[in-house]
């Protein structure tokens, strides 16, 4: 049947080439609907509990998406006329930022003080250009002793300061809104640099992180993608031996990408760095099918067949295995749909589509176009297949020792799998090639970080934030929190109450304590609120019926494991020390990212199991043998286990990126097994060979192609390890390692297994 099909394809070659191009173009038109997401929230499903908790908190108080200007005066002193003037200038201009709702800086910090019997609320540095040395010293003294400012807007030694802009993105057209803010911020930075060349400016904050996602993808696209294509052309030209084959395969790569990305557009998938990685994974997948078809075609011509005969022969023996491997690869990628993080679902779906497009083209466009292109191959015995033959003899001769040795090696390596612990660091999602990563690192080392946890502390009664009992509990919690080694700053309302109490008592430091009566607190608050300017209100800290307050803890940059352990301790403290109404889980982006690794591993475990069962059933049916199907489980599963074992020794930390690798590589490593086993079984059944000869036959027909496709895959994923997005590079590294183990297992473990388990039966089994 496959033979008839192949002849049909060759007869209508021109029609098929044209039809392929038309269909791919139609799919490709969908690319116009592709958009780049720039919102970190895309990593979380809509019903992700940590996301829901965080959204609720933001609805109750205010959003805390932000941009932070980090100002670094060259002379190392923020408290000079020139620098404070620069801060004031930037603060004033920052109000023009699109969607901004709040601008906070050292200069517009609302300082409260007592003047005779009155409460004075004013900018800490008003018209700072005219301040005298003693006024500057006074401002320095206030700022460096103010818990609200220290480690947030001013460094403890006063050498770096921040201007923080709170942004409320309306979320109507997210594709436009975030870049709009960033564009304004960057042009403002340019303007600032022109006027104040002696002050360094860095940019951090959630908005900048959002922007880094598409920018990381653009970096990959402009640097890695061309490199990857170059590597592939080199590999192909070397192995496929001929311009025609290389050209045809190159066209298939491009068509598969165009087709898959176009379909993604038609389906309305929004691109993120993980899903954009599809553009680099599809070529590695697409290339394998063509390599198998072309290599058997070249081998047949070397045996002396003409072009047509050789192609019909190649399609005949490759149709089933190429189809099978494409389906199993697609299933492996589709298993990502179990992921908790939507970008990985998209990645899986886009690659799966690309794989199927590549398959379709490999059995239509490829044979057709090869007949149209010139191509001659000399009749000869190639050295590489001689080498393959020698290798087969080696494996057959040493089969018992190999089985034992490989078995032992596997056990040793797999024993290191438990050494992996779940850990991640979400600022490190971006490599240092990305400006945001460098700026965020600088900010976290010198001023403040992106790592925050918010707690909504509820009193349970209207106006309860003024209740002395509640305030004492809040203060205790804040004090406990500040005592934790991971914490650099705690922003809490009780500091404001203490400050007001002091100002109401003539700035007497001994009154820097919580008011003792509820009415007094409430009335201080009323007075204070009346005195605040636009955008510096308390809505971000107190809810509307004043029954609850938000406390924000700022942490050093740290791994997800540390974050989770801190939150666990915080929850225990709350449970042991305060009423139930105050015992709310911490919420923030870092809490979300800290949980998603574990959630994802759990969901992917299920996804991978489903994929494994499906793939095994397909193999059993296709290979028409339960026994061989079950034997295939070993080389299919072992590579991932070995890779995690090796990772356990070398790295020891797995995060979001690696949670998807097993499902994804499963579909890829199965290919090698399928090709090897289908040739092995063909030899056993059609040619009546025994297990040893069948292994010999399999090595000779498919060994080289397997090495070539593995080299292509490893090269492809190796290029991807240079991605500006760490999730992609870790995933690529792990996948590459898995593929190396897969080819080792297929060559050194599977044949001895077959000879041991399948060898004793009759050849016509």
């Amino acid at each position, binding site marked *: 049947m496959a033979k008839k099909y192949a002849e049909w394809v060759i007869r209508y070659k021109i029609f098929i080439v044209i039809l392929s191009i038309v269909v791919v173009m139609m799919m490709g038109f969908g690319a116009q609907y592709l958009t780049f997401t720039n919102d970190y929230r895309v990593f979380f499903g809509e019903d992700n509990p940590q996301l829901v908790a965080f959204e*609720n908190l933001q*609805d*109750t108080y*205010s*959003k805390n998406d932000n941009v932070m200007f980090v100002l670094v005066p060259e002379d190392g002193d923020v408290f000079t006329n020139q620098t404070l003037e620069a801060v004031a200038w930037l603060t004033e201009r920052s*109000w*023009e*930022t*699109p*969607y*901004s*709702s709040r601008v906070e800086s050292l200069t517009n910090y609302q300082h409260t003080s007592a*003047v005779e*019997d*009155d*409460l*004075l*609320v*004013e900018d800490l540095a008003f018209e700072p250009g005219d301040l005298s040395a003693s006024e500057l010293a006074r401002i320095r003294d206030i700022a460096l002793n103010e818990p609200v400012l220290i480690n947030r807007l001013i460094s403890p030694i006063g050498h770096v300061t921040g201007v923080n802009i709170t942004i*409320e993105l309306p979320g109507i057209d997210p594709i436009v809104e975030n870049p709009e803010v960033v564009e304004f911020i960057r042009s403002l930075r340019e303007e600032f640099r022109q006027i104040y060349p002696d002050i360094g400016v860095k940019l951090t904050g959630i908005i900048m992180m959002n922007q880094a996602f598409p920018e990381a993808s653009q970096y990959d696209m402009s640097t890695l993608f061309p490199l990857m294509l170059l590597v592939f052309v080199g590999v192909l030209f070397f192995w496929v031996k001929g311009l025609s084959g290389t050209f045809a395969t190159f066209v298939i790569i491009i068509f598969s990408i165009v087709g898959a990305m176009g379909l993604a557009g038609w389906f309305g998938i929004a691109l993120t760095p993980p899903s954009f990685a599809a553009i680099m994974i599809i070529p590695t997948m697409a290339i394998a099918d063509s390599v198998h078809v072309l290599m058997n075609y070249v081998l047949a011509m070397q045996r002396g067949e003409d072009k047509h005969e050789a192609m019909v022969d190649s399609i005949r023996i490759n149709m089933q295995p190429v189809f099978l491997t494409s389906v199993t690869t697609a299933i492996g990628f589709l298993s990502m749909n179990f992921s908790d993080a939507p970008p990985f679902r998209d990645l899986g779906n886009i690659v799966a589509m690309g794989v199927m497009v590549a398959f379709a083209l490999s059995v239509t466009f490829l044979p057709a176009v090869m007949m149209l292109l010139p191509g001659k191959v000399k009749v000869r015995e190639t050295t590489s297949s001689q080498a393959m033959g020698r290798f087969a003899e080696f494996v057959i001769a040493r089969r018992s020792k190999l089985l034992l040795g490989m078995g032992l090696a596997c056990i040793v390596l797999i024993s290191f799998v438990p050494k992996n612990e779940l850990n991640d660091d979400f600022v490190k999602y971006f490599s240092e090639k990305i400006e945001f990563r460098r700026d965020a690192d600088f900010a976290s080392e010198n001023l403040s970080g992106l790592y925050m946890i918010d707690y909504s502390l509820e009193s349970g009664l*209207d*106006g309860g934030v*003024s209740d002395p009992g509640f305030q004492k509990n809040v203060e205790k919690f804040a004090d406990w929190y500040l005592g934790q080694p991971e914490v650099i700053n705690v922003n809490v309302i009780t500091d404001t109450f203490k400050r007001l109490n002091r100002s*109401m008592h003539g700035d007497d430091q001994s009154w820097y304590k919580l008011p003792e*009566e*509820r*009415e*007094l*607190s*409430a*009335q*201080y608050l*009323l*007075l204070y*609120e*009346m*005195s*605040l*300017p*636009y*955008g*510096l*209100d*308390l*809505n971000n800290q*107190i*809810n*509307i*019926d*004043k029954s609850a307050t938000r406390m924000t803890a700022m942490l050093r940059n740290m791994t997800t494991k540390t974050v989770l352990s801190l939150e666990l301790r915080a929850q225990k403290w709350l449970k042991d020390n305060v009423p139930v109404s105050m015992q709310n889980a911490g919420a923030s982006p870092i809490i979300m990212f800290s949980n998603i690794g574990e959630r994802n591993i759990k969901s992917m475990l299920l996804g991978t199991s489903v994929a494994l069962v499906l793939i095994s059933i397909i193999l059993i049916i296709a290979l028409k043998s339960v026994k061989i199907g079950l034997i295939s489980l070993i080389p299919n599963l072992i590579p991932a286990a070995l890779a995690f074992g090796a990772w356990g020794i070398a790295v020891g930390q797995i995060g979001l990126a690696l949670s998807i690798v097993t499902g994804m590589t499963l579909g890829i490593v199965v290919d090698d097994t399928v090709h090897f086993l289908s040739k092995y079984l063909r030899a056993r059944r059609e040619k009546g060979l025994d297990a040893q000869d069948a292994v010999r036959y399999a090595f000779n027909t498919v060994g080289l192609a397997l090495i070539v496709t593995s080299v292509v895959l490893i090269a492809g994923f190796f290029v991807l390890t240079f991605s500006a997005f760490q999730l992609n590079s870790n995933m690529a590294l792990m996948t590459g390692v898995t593929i190396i183990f897969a080819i080792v297992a297929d060559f050194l473990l599977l044949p001895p297994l077959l000879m041991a388990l399948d060898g004793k039966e009759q050849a016509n089994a």
Partner: protein
Amino acid sequence: MLNRNSMIAVILSLVLLPTLALAQSAEQKGLEIALAAKAFDQGFADFTANMRMTLKSRNGATSTRLIRIKTLEVEADGDRSLSIFDEPADVKGTAMLTFSHGLEPDDQWLYLPALKKVKRISSRNKSGPFMGSTFAFEDLGSQEVEKYTYKFLREEPCGDWQCYVIERKPAYQYSGYTSQTAWLDKKGYRVVKVEYFDRKKALLKTLTASNFQQYLGLYWRPGKMEMVNHLNGKSTTLEWTDYQFKTGLSDRDFRAQALKRLK
């Protein structure tokens, strides 16, 4: 006296406005409308009213405050007003006295019953949220003509009425806004809608006023005002009841020292 003056102003403006409009610049016409509106309301002497303020957050939670307002008309300066807070309970008895001035910062005092002291609020800021609401003090304070520069934009229907649409730019340096667009109905100069634009010139808030009633056959007051903040999704509704005009209040009732003795 006041009354007669204001009546003359009203009649004059009503007669002159349409004819002047032909030859005027948009700025002049805007100013005329503002002056006419002021004239229309002049002479109320004083009024008292109760205000129920309902705050609504993005997720629909609400919270209520009750405030009594007393206002004294002052010629040639901003009005004086007294706000007495009845709810929430923990601020009951707190009273705020405001002498509003055109371009100078207002004088403000707050009496805190828990402290038994009157505190002067020394701040340039009028743009912060009033009691945590979406209203700024700036939006609620008396609207003196010299607080803005004006520009007539157009006339258009507003609900059942015809409205002047004018742009007003705050002359006060520390205002939270760059401009406002106000809709005033042509018959009674009632402010039915105001759009507030923030420092990035984006629409920040919209005020809509409704349920207007005329008192003493002259003075229109809204029964309901709603202020929506478009940036953060919060809104605040003010419901006004028990309006009483010409109750006989005087300077003596609007003194900082008198705050302590209020009930």
